[in-house]
């Protein structure tokens, strides 16, 4: 019963099961919660990047209308250390007078209304002792961390191979800081009831928030309940326990009332981390006919003063293409900047831009079609270990994409295609995305009427987890999708992992798969105790499920409905818990491959004005088994838009003297608007992946990756200008 059946349900583009709730406003997001007696909090942020608070005058704020409490480092509760969760979480706020970045929380004001809290917060006066700040990644005084995760990699002999290579590319590629900017303003509503705490909170990992908050406030984990059934997007922003959360909890404890803390858009820029800027040095060695002989990839990314971050930009060079000699190294530099953090495709997005630009440069250098060079260097097996891939349809992505796009119709010469004032260029990029999975659990329950519900603490950040898990459970239990009720986003449910790393579908899906298997087993065992059951003495392997019934394979009439089995045994429900842990590559003898993809774009550049327009995009992806094509397309489409943003618009700009983010509003931080996005052709290829029982790879992030280099490569084809820095703006293209 462990095989996946029901193609009618699995893979079908069914509508979001939570769609009606969302469009009718019944889905309640954290900021929709208003509790009786609730007070409102507003934060105060530092306006220097480094130093100490000499004096804070809170008298005016305290006297301000409606103010209940002003908390600074002088009267804040002493909180316990924040445990790490995969990466470090920010240590508790307001514990000392040290300023580590511009925008750090230095006080929180609680009042009867949001307006009163905000007005009072502006009345707090602060004097600082300013220290010199480290803001430039090249500052020699800044701490450098080499090989931060012990993942620097080397095989073969890159030095010699580069020295001997007849063709070499040696270039530097940079990407700028980007900010995640989920639309929903992150909000925490904290309410204490004695020693137990309930949080309505925007995040991507309720159990992690639960654990960190419990540790900080010195209460047992079970005393904290985190509710996140809906969140207004994340893109990675919700993967840590950010400091506004303990501030809200502390504030609620101080005033003895529930407290709502909703960040403003500018506060979202400093309070939730952002994608680090990156510098990538790449050296490629190749034969005259374009075969890679060496890849050397080094990266430098940034870190806040007291945090960490996993952003291995160079890793993509270890699994994307076949090369006998490879070296990758990552370095980080600590600065007085707001936290860097995961943002959709962390590390991969930046590293892929560098690698796919360099591969393109190599193609032009050796006179090979940029598509051909990628096919030529396709890695048949994991180049690092020589093990076979769990699946890898990169080649198919490239070939199918090229056909859909009409790649062969291009004139290969640079500056050869034009339309009026516009130079036209075609660009391609390949994508090999990382693989990621964490342990997860779920409970599946069948009720007396034969319908089921599925529970897990994980949250659906808008990707469609509710829907695809309902489909999966329905498929495995032989039910209709609307017979499965999903209950997610509650830390008191079976422990779940993060909605991040494109790994939730595999993690939760495998747990649901496990639970459904166990549950069917329980039903079969139960039926076995009933001598009159048609299923008595049927071995488990021979059981099939369909239309809410268990029956013997090939004998549909020899069976019994789930509801009947429960009724016969006087049960109102039957449940089973399922767990998943990632398989081991060694045991399975294969390397898990994340999703694969190819991007083809047509760009148009106004020759005089430098204005850039993306005219067409074809994106083809291998996401293993696609559980719901409609939702998977949404993920790819959203990712593509993010990729256009990264390529042409998005840049979190920091003032060089003060460390202040200079464009922390939607008026100033540009994300693409509809008019910037052309028709996007989306297609899936590939087979169910062999590394997890449900065959999925996760498609939440890959859509973004590769769009930027495809655009940059297209711009080169159009104009002959190689731009190695993102975002690419018109001033770079004006002759």
């Amino acid at each position, binding site marked *: 019963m462990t095989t996946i059946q029901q193609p009618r349900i699995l893979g079908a583009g069914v509508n979001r099961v939570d769609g009606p709730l969302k469009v009718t406003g019944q889905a309640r997001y954290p900021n929709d919660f208003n509790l009786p007696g609730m007070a409102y909090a507003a934060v105060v942020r530092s306006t220097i990047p480094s130093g100490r608070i000499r004096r804070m005058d809170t008298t005016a704020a305290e006297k301000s209308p409606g103010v209940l409490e002003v908390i600074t480092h002088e009267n804040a509760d002493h909180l316990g250390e924040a445990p790490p969760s995969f990466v470090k979480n920010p240590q508790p706020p307001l514990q000392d007078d040290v300023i580590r970045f511009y925008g750090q929380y230095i006080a929180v004001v609680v009042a009867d209304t949001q307006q009163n809290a905000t007005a009072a917060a502006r009345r707090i006066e602060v004097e600082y002792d300013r220290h010199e700040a480290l803001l430039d990644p090249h500052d020699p005084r800044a701490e450098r961390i080499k090989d931060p995760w012990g993942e620097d990699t080397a095989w073969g002999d890159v030095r010699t191979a580069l020295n001997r290579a007849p063709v070499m590319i040696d270039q530097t590629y940079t990407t700028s800081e980007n900010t995640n900017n989920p639309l929903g303003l992150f909000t925490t509503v904290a309410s204490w009831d004695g020693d137990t705490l309930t949080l309505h909170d925007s995040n991507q990992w309720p159990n992690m928030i639960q654990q960190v908050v419990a540790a900080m406030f010195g209460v047992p984990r079970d005393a904290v309940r985190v509710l996140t059934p809906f969140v207004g997007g994340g893109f990675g922003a919700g993967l840590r326990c950010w400091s506004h959360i303990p501030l809200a909890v502390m504030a609620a404890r101080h005033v003895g009332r529930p407290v709502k803390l909703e960040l403003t858009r500018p506060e979202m820029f400093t309070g939730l981390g952002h994608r680090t800027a990156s510098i990538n040095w790449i050296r490629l060695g190749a034969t005259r006919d374009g075969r890679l002989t060496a890849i050397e990839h080094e990266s430098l990314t940034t870190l806040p003063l007291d945090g960490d971050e996993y952003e291995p930009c160079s890793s993509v060079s270890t699994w994307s293409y076949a090369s006998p000699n490879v070296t990758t190294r990552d370095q980080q530099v600590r600065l007085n900047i707001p936290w860097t953090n995961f943002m959709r495709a962390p590390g991969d997005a930046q590293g892929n831009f560098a690698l796919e630009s360099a591969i393109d440069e190599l193609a032009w250098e050796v006179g090979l079609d940029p598509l051909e060079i990628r096919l030529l260097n396709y890695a048949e097996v994991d180049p690092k270990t020589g093990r076979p891939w769990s699946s890898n349809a990169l080649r198919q992505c490239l070939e199918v994409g090229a056909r859909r796009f009409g790649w062969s119709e291009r004139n290969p010469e640079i500056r050869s295609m034009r339309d009026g004032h516009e130079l036209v260029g075609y660009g391609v990029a390949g994508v090999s995305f990382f693989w990621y999975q964490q342990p997860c659990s779920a409970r599946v329950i069948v009720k007396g009427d034969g319908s089921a519900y599925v529970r897990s603490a994980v949250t659906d950040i808008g990707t469609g987890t509710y829907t695809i898990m309902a489909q999966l459970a329905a498929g495995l239990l032989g039910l209709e999708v609307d017979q499965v009720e999903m209950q997610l986003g509650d830390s008191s449910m079976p422990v779940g992992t993060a909605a991040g790393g494109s790994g939730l579908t595999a993690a939760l899906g495998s747990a649901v798969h496990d639970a459904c298997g166990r549950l069917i087993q329980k039903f079969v065992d139960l039926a076995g105790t009933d001598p009159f059951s048609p299923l008595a003495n049927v071995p488990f392997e021979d059981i099939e499920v369909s239309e809410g019934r268990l029956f013997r394979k090939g004998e549909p009439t020899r069976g019994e409905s789930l509801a009947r089995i429960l009724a016969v045994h006087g049960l109102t429900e039957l449940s089973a818990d399922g767990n998943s842990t990632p398989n081991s590559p060694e045991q399975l003898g294969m390397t898990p491959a994340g999703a694969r993809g190819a991007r083809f774009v047509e760009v148009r550049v106004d020759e005089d004005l430098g204005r850039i327009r993306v005219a067409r995009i074809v994106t083809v992806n291998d996401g293993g088994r696609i559980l719901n094509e409609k939702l998977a397309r949404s993920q790819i489409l959203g990712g593509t838009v993010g990729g256009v943003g990264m390529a042409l618009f998005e840049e979190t700009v920091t003032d060089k003297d003060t460390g202040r983010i*200079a464009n922390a509003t939607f008026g100033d931080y540009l994300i693409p*608007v509809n008019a910037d996005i052309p028709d996007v052709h989306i297609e899936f290829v590939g087979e169910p992946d062999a590394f997890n029982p449900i065959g999925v790879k996760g498609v939440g992030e890959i859509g973004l990756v590769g769009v930027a280099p495809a655009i940059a490569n297209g711009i080169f084809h159009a104009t002959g200008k190689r731009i190695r820095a993102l975002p690419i703006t*018109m001033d770079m293209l*004006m002759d």
Partner: protein
Amino acid sequence: MREFRYERPATVAEAIRAVSHDPEADFLAGGTTEVDLMKDGVFHPDLLVDITRLPLRGVRRNGTMLQVGALTTMEELAADRTLVERAPFVVEALLRGASAQLRNMATIGGNLLQRTRCRYFRDPAVPACNKREPGSGCEAVNSVARMHAILGASPACIALHASDLAVPLVALDAVVHIQSEEGERLVPLTQFYLMPGETPDRENVLRHGELITAIDIPLPPPGTRSIYLKIRDRASYEFALTSAAVAVIMDGGVIKEARVAMGGIGTIPWRCFEAEEVLREAPATPDTFRSAADGTIRDPFVVPGTAFKVELAKRTLIRALTEVTS
């Protein structure tokens, strides 16, 4: 936001009186500038006088003139038939501005009075801003300035006047009707805005309590061709990096008459008299256009972030001239 009082008088006279007698009072039209800046903590009026119900809304044809009530919204003006026919570049400037939602709220009077988008002006946590705190300095000059001005700018202030609408309106010599307790005065839009000089906090000739009641837009003669070309990073919903408003009367390949103004580059909406001089009676050729452009961008004041605008502005004007004359 601090507490403030709110009044909604029924007559123009009452509205003017209410603001005139309270130095901390502001008019409130669509609120898309005023309320934004209040929320950001830049403006803190103690009284808002809501003028949106005053009878100052609508467009009237008056001979060769369109008289536009100050409270006409951007969308309403953009839909005016006469304007679409006779001066389409005004309509283009309107519709390339902001978003449909904003244009349904925003008024013509408010548009001309919108404040700069300079982020250092809009963030009270930044200490140095001569426009917000006279004498405090200018943070933008030494910082990140892409959306800033290169003409009329000085180390004291490089803030851009970001209105799109004002650009074709200065080209057409629109006239502003200003009402105060003393009576009405008429000021040509070309003389309405003030160069920042040493007093960037003073942006125009309005005195406290004076109300804009209407704008007269002279209609160019039939047969005039016009264009508003707006260049920006995004395809929509963004202010101009550079823009050009051009109206010409052609006679074969010769430009008989030209009106030119530029946006995205000036501390005030920039009327390009030198360009008009070059263009008048000149053949519509690339050479003519280039010298018109060179004549416009004279003695720019640039910072690293705005340096590219010198050439971009010239090419924008050349493109606009090329398109409108061909």
